[in-house]
């Protein structure tokens, strides 16, 4: 069992097998536990509305009406497209800016670096509810309300991503940079040719987290993207909630559909989370 990324201890084959089976059972149980609520939304999405408000493990009359309603009641395609646009642009910006910034904070020396990094940390500490009015006023005075640019502008770079990249760069061994410096490579070249390839896992993480964050975000898009034609998926999905009732089947159906792109992205980027990728890059 190589749980702790160490070398395999040799035990008797039978004991090892029992241990492995036990591990997989435990993992499956935990995975099931993590999965249950999603399973619940899947089941609810194929129920009828009266059926969905009561507890039952299986729909009485399974129907795809929820999915039909989800896709036709409001402009699902439009909202999905809007979400895709803002999520892609914002994620790309974040990867570039967090990468450059994180590297600078980790490896470059410039006066006031530590103070500026405190500014990065401080940005994490300000609740959205407190920033709401000044930020909205700024976006409004720039005439960017109801535009993608306005929303993208305030999300251009998030402190979490920059912080994360910095920590990751800090944990990389220094010898690679030293080697690059001896080759008299410029700072950007060192960054581009040496550090960035090594930061595969970190960048993959930022891509997953930022894309997922924007894809599911409700608060700022609601405030800034007021025009119905600019709405993103979460706002659209919220249309199924009303003051005294929630139209669960289409809401769950839409949520199920909305999860798929993020899940796909996650699975596709897993190849960057392979042990030894870093070492291989180093040796290259």
């Amino acid at each position, binding site marked *: *069992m*190589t*749980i*702790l*990324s*160490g*070398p395999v*201890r040799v035990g008797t084959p039978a004991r090892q097998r029992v241990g492995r089976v036990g*591990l997989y059972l435990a993992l499956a149980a*935990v*995975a099931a536990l*993590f999965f*249950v*609520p*999603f399973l*619940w939304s899947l089941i609810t999405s194929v129920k009828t509305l009266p059926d969905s408000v009561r*507890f039952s493990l299986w729909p009485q009359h399974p129907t795809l009406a929820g999915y039909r309603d989800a896709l036709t009641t409001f402009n699902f395609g439009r909202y999905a497209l809007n979400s895709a646009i803002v999520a892609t642009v914002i994620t790309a910006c974040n990867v570039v800016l*967090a990468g*450059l910034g994180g590297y*600078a904070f980790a490896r*470059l*020396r410039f006066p006031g670096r530590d103070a500026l990094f405190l*500014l*990065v*940390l401080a940005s*994490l*500490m*300000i*609740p959205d*509810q*407190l*920033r*709401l009015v000044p*930020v909205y006023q*700024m976006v409004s005075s720039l005439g960017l309300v109801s535009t993608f640019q306005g929303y993208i*502008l305030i999300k*251009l*770079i998030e*402190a979490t991503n*920059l*912080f994360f990249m910095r*920590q*990751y760069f*800090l*944990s*990389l*061994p*220094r010898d690679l940079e030293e080697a690059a410096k001896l080759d008299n490579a410029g*700072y950007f070249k060192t960054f581009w040719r040496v550090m960035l390839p090594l930061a595969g*896992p970190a960048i993959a*993480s930022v891509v997953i*987290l930022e894309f*997922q964050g924007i894809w*599911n975000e409700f608060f700022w898009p609601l405030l800034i993207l007021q025009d119905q034609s600019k709405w993103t998926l979460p706002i659209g999905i919220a249309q199924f909630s009303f003051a005294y009732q929630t139209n669960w089947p289409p809401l769950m159906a839409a949520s199920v559909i*909305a*999860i798929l792109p993020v899940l796909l992205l996650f699975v596709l980027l*897993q190849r960057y*989370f392979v*042990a030894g990728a*870093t070492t291989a890059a180093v040796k290259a």
Partner: protein
Amino acid sequence: MPRARAGWSQRRKEALVGYAFVLVPMSVFAAFYLFPMLYAAYISVFDWGVRGKIEYLGLANYRELLDDGLFWRAVRNTLQYTAEVVVLQTPLGLALALIVNGKIRARTFFRAAFYFPSIASSAAITAIFIFILSSDGLVNRVLGWFGLPADTSWFGDDRFALHAIVGLNAWTTSGTIMLFYLAALQSIPTDVYEAAAIDRASRWRTFWKVTMPLLKPAHFFVLAVTIIGALKVFDQAYIVSRGEGGPNYSTLTIVLELFRAAINDLRFGYAAAMGVVLFAFLFTVTLLQRRLFGNSEAS
């Protein structure tokens, strides 16, 4: 060129590149975070409404805050919540990362399964949890199968409501923490483990003496980010208690009170005072953490 001058111009070049790399991020943070915070600090000494300044108050908002029973209850709840959720989700996330980092079958499947709760929208998840934790919901039914009391209203009982939110958030955040640690684990070169094996170190010792210290930059990040996030908890408390912070004030959080002062009472100055107090506290906590974990680098 004399060596000294070469050194100086090299350092200047490095500094310029450094500034160039951080220019855009710093501008964004300054505009959308620092400026609003300074604005909040400014208006916190006024009676400030939607239309702007109403009256200069000096420290009256802060003095009122000291006497505000609801606020201090919120502080207590928020601190309790933070301690519980961080202690629960951080080891869980790390454990999951270690497991899915190893050579197990169907690794990608398990990684996706553990990350799943973090993918779904928080509104959908909260709604699901309310349903599952209702007095005739799934959890109680399962408890009933085991002969345990099966009629607790989890979100309606002041003994359990906050803990239920802890469970909910730990469940959704542990996947994200897993992802962070998973990335960090990739930066540990495998020869480190090979060296440990050569030294005949046990797996447990390897973990504590080698892996954990090498994860220090990740620890600092995870703890800083999750503690800050926990102290700002709002969404679930708001949804579950319908904005009331009940039952019996048990789900009142700092940001919930801030929100109420700003949005319901339209007392932006008072809300800003709360924000300043929260910020000061967060800043202190993070600085303390920095002292503990430092600007560690891999050796």
